[in-house]
């Protein structure tokens, strides 16, 4: 009996200890911000190393020469779904692996210009209906086979295959502008004419129409023909060469050699890398819960954390205080917005999926441009950036990613000013007619704005009540609904947007691609993702003008057109852009040679090295 008592005592003291520990360090643990990558995928193509970055200075320890050897551990907060095939993968976590293993003909540099990767040079024809690439010679796939023009043709041919979409592929945007796509995807011909191999190292892309940005369309990551040619497209997603470490073959500086699924993903050096042997022996991705990442950075168990979520803004100061950690911060490709539901679809149209602006029903609650502008003035956006992002973000006014040449600051700014807002509403006739403390419509009817928002992104969730408060301050009666789960939310605001339930204001975030600033996908009148159902013919006119050839071959022409469009946007305001969040990267100071791209931490990983390598 006595013995048992002592065992008990030990167990209990252990827990007593925990209780004490609980008081002393509970401050560190912030509930993690839920990753919301599902709704905001971008078209990041996992482009990595460009060949012409020889001037890389290896971080700030310039005196140290890069050393070979050493290992690195990266952390991601969610496990990749498991499809390691560039033509079928769909999320940022898979891209984290593919960025090391696969490459494309061209990559992008810090100013988002396309630079050579697997192609060393290129030439477009006069009307930009064709672009011919000269490939690097002597590039080897991980299994030793040579990379040739046939691989490029095969990759695009597979994406154009009639069975591609059915097999789960969604990247058809890269092949739709190519010659002969329709015939090929319909199964009318066995020959895909869009991409042709002129000889072993020359490949030409043929476009149906003059193309403004042919490099973008030829920037898709290349897969090996000799591995996949005998596999029907429908079986590719479930083939070992897509799923299994050791079987995934690319041309990149690291080989995906081993994994413990959902826990660890091991990349080992590709000794035969065409662009020079990588310094690091091994890079291991570990899947680590968001709430633990920062502690493991401090202990050195993990060396870096980067895309897609990085370090939460709330933890910035704490992590920056670690002696062994370097921080890096850059603007995310995308923004959060509060959209105005300008028009609804009819129930029939919503059910059949028709987008016909002629049938749209205007939403009188936010139809007045002046009202929308007043609302923009009333929202304390710098306050959101300070309060929710701890200053790690920026207020933006134009819906093009800030990193692009096309982005302009020169648009109406809507600096926070409740007085201006109130005054504008007074002018527009939205005054409190019945004395209940809330503004009413100019007709004297009750005016209530329904604000809808989804769960998932915690920061966005927290912004909803703040916005409500801001608007109520100037007398707008806002009905803040319960946050709904994302699938349900999207049905309400986009798929079945027929006034039922009524939505006037909605919160949403978009991640943008780094390839081209063309806003067609989100803001074209008939685009499904034009959730505001913004119907301004002038906007479509400008968007189309930005792609009109031959004028649009000149970037300065496009720049001017897009500036005009951004101005129209910021004046007509189909949505108030709330903020663009910053990506916060953190890495151990032993890691050298880090040179992130605006859209990715992983750039030229073959030049990464560690200063404690043996």
């Amino acid at each position, binding site marked *: 009996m006595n013995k*048992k*008592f002592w065992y*008990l005592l030990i*167990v209990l003291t252990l*827990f007593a200890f*925990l*209780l004490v520990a609980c008081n002393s*360090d509970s401050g*560190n*643990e912030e*509930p993690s911000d839920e990753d919301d990558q*599902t*709704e905001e*995928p*971008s*078209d990041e193509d996992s482009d990595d190393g460009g060949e012409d970055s020889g001037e890389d200075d290896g971080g700030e320890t310039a005196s140290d020469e890069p050393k070979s050897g050493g290992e690195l551990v990266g952390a991601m907060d969610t*496990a990749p*779904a498991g*499809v390691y095939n560039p033509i*079928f*993968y*769909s999320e940022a976590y898979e891209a984290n692996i593919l960025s090391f293993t696969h490459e494309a003909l061209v990559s992008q540099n810090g100013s988002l210009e396309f630079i050579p990767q697997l192609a060393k040079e290129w030439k477009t024809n006069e009307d930009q209906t064709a672009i011919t690439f000269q490939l690097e010679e002597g590039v080897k796939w991980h299994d030793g086979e040579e990379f040739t023009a046939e691989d490029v043709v095969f990759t695009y041919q597979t994406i154009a295959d009639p069975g591609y*979409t*059915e097999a789960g592929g*969604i990247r*058809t*945007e890269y092949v739709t502008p190519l010659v002969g796509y329709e015939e090929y995807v319909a199964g009318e011909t066995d020959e895909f004419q869009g991409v042709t191999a002129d000889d072993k190292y020359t490949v030409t892309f043929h476009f149906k129409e003059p193309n403004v940005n042919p490099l973008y369309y030829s920037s898709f990551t290349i897969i090996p023909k000799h591995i996949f040619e005998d596999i029907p497209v429908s079986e590719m*997603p*479930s083939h070992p060469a897509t*799923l299994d470490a050791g079987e995934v073959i690319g041309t990149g500086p690291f080989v995906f050699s*081993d994994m*413990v*699924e*959902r*826990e*660890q993903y*091991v990349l080992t050096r590709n000794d035969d890398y065409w662009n020079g042997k990588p310094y690091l022996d091994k890079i291991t991705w*570990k*899947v*680590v*819960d968001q*709430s*633990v990442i920062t*502690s*493991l950075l*401090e*202990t050195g168990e993990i060396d870096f954390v980067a895309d897609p979520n990085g370090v939460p803004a709330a933890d910035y100061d704490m992590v920056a205080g670690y002696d062994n950690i370097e921080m890096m911060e850059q603007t995310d490709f995308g923004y959060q917005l509060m959209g105005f539901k300008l028009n609804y679809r009819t129930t029939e149209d919503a059910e059949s*999926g028709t987008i016909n602006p002629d049938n749209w029903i205007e939403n009188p609650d936010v139809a007045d441009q002046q009202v929308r502008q007043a609302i923009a003035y009333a929202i304390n956006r710098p306050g959101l950036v300070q309060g929710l992002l701890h200053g790690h973000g920026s207020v933006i006014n134009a819906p093009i990613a800030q990193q692009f040449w096309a982005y302009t600051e020169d648009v109406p700014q809507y600096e926070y000013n409740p007085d201006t807002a109130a005054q504008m509403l007074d002018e527009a006739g939205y005054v409190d007619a019945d004395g209940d403390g809330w503004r009413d419509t100019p007709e004297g009817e009750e005016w209530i704005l329904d604000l809808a928002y989804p769960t998932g992104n915690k920061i966005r969730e927290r912004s909803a009540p703040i916005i409500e408060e801001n608007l109520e301050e100037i007398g707008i009666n806002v009905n803040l609904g319960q946050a709904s*789960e*994302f*699938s*349900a939310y*999207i*049905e*309400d605001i986009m*798929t079945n947007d027929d006034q039922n339930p009524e939505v006037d204001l909605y919160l949403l975030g978009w991640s943008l*691609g780094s390839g081209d600033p063309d806003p067609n*996908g989100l803001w074209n009148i008939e*685009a*499904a993702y034009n959730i505001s159902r913004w119907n301004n013919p002038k906007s479509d006119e400008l968007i189309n003008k930005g792609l009109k050839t031959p004028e649009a071959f000149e970037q300065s022409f496009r720049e001017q057109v897009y500036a005009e469009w951004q101005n129209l946007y910021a004046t007509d305001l189909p949505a108030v852009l709330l903020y663009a969040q910053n990506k916060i990267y953190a890495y151990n100071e032993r890691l050298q040679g880090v040179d992130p791209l605006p859209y990715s931490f992983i750039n030229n990983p073959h030049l990464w090295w560690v200063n404690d390598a043996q």
Partner: protein
Amino acid sequence: MYKYIIRRILIFVPMLFALSVVVFALAKAAPGDPFTTMLDPNVDPEVYEERREAEGLNDPLPVQYYHWIWSTVQGDFGESLIYNGRPVLDLISARFLNTIYLGLVALFFTIIVAIPIGIYSARNPYSWLDYFATGFGFFGLAIPNFFFGLLAIYFFSIKMGWFPSQGTISGTDVAGMQEFFDRLHHMILPGITLGLAGTATYMRYMRSEVLDVLGSDYIRTAKAKGMTNRNVLYKHTLRNALIPIITLMGFEFGVLISGAVITERVFNYPGLGTLFLQGVINRDYPIVMALALIFGVFILVGNLLADIFYSVVDPRIRYD
């Protein structure tokens, strides 16, 4: 006895059928489908529509149900819609053992802590240790799982370095016996975290059951016969006190299989709980429906096992 078991198993069939209808109806009643959450301005919505058509999501519900139940009966749970067409069975089997192991460790922890403390508390009610155990019980029930998990990680893993904090294994190169111990090492913290609430509950149950039994007439009789305290405890008290515990464990069995979303997340321990949650969020119907059915089977089996154990513990209970 065997007849009884067979009869019980036969009853599973209509129950599972009813369950399948409910699961299917609920899964489909939720708004949205796997493709509504995939919003990518670079992807033509037509593409998603084609995928819907290809996956049969546009078929009438009875047709969809028929396709699903028919392939399920043949042992084919279909393919995940989110994990790019990976077979559901693969996804589940990859995590199934993890979940089972973790559940067993948690259960083991629960039993070795809860039952002795419960008994001790009952035999020495209102002793300071009993009060302490009561306090611990409330603590265990009250503290949120994720918080306790984070504390455990912070204290035992990061500060003391005794246990690994994440995952089920150290690396890809451990094998053999080393792998066994490595996996066990990884399971201890999540196991304790997962078992904590159960420990507290069972402790309280055990205490009150043992107290109850100790006060009953037959114990007094046994004592009057001159039986030693030890014998009274093990021969008479425990057997009777365990019966309600076994009922609870029957349920617990199913619950443990269904995974522990929060514990799995904090420790990045890949198990069925996270898979199920992800499935629900993404409307990955094949995964949700397959898992719901599997959980159902385990709860039924757990209850059956509990019933069988009754007759082992209490000879008065006979099935025929």
